């Protein structure tokens, strides 16, 4: 299946709401000079990136429909979500 990119720039995830079909691999790329993470909101979510330095990437393949909220644990005001549809 196809891949989709999310950019981290200026302390924001772009796009903030991403809609993708099941099976899509989403890749986040940090374009900031600051380090960020891609981490599921709350407990039990699937997104757990390590600390992403500038130009570092993190990928996850969504296999179950649903809405996946996530944030940067270092800058938790940075929030976004991925909506996965059949």
């Amino acid at each position: 299946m196809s891949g989709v990119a999310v950019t981290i720039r200026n302390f924001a995830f772009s796009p903030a709401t991403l809609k993708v079909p099941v099976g899509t691999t989403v890749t986040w790329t940090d374009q900031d000079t600051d380090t960020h993470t891609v981490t599921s909101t709350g407990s039990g979510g699937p997104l757990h990136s390590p600390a992403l330095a500038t130009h570092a990437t993190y990928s996850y393949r969504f296999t179950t429909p649903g809405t996946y909220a996530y944030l940067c644990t270092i800058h938790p005001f940075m929030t976004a979500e991925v909506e996965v549809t059949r």
Partner: protein
Amino acid sequence: MTGYRDAQDPVPDGAADQPAGEHGMSRRQLMRHAGWFGGAVVLTVAAGEVTSRIAGPRGTGAEAVAATGGALRFVQVSDSHIGFHGPANTDVAGSFTKAIDQVNALGFRPDFVMHSGDLTHLSTADQFDQVRQMMTRLRTDRVFTVPGEHDSIGDAGRAYRQIFGSGTLGDGWYSFDTHGVHFVALVNTLSLEKLGHLGTEQIDFVRKDLSGLSSDTPIVVFSHIPLFAMYPQWGWSTDDALKVIALLRRFSSVTCLNGHVHQLFTKTEGNITFHSATTTAYPLPKPGRAPAPTPQVVPARQLKAALGIRTVGYRQGDRELAVKDERLA
């Protein structure tokens, strides 16, 4: 110091509830401050820096307290960000070393030193080991810490607790008593959702911890992220802090000391005074003055002036603690 310099400027959103008076201290804060020393406080303004000094021979802040035996004197350092590499400070280890040297040269041995979080920049084993080793140089009886969000990246604070969490409860919180003061050290950098968060287990701990204390016990609360709404848009607040604030209301003197925001800021709400500390690493913008709270690149001399350490003194029987911020020498 540097934080007070611009404090008379309007700060968005609740950060400036107190009307700013002389040099950013509200009249009430100034009076409380003067009241603590029981004498005149002279605000010296030099090169934009505001320093409070007691008129008379007793010295300043913790040194004044030291003049009477049996007083409590401790130091707060914060946000050393060991492992940070960037133009905002190309040598954070060197800055933290200077801060440690300055603590060791205070002229008195602090009863303890509290590092209020973001010891490391990225929570790596090497960074934790480096900052731990550096802090062994502190000439003090005890070093305490609370974790910052930079100390709990990817592992919900496990690596932090392995090194700094012995003797703590839950996710790393604890309390202790010395010199008639009750200290509570909180963890509000885990389970973050936009803001700092304490959680019900920790709030229950605080409730039980405070329940046996008489209301005239001075309370000091440490946390990394401010317990007051300094600037929620940048996460500079704690979403469930009001539950702890409610438990603190009955005490006659409460002092909350935090880090995280890399700049000095003071706010009084009734019986509770909040003091944000500066950093030893790099400045962050004032609330809302930049698109994001990114490390600020400033000229070398300005950088030094933005960094600092804090000494706190308390004499048994007094109502207030004396908080004194010093820039890095």
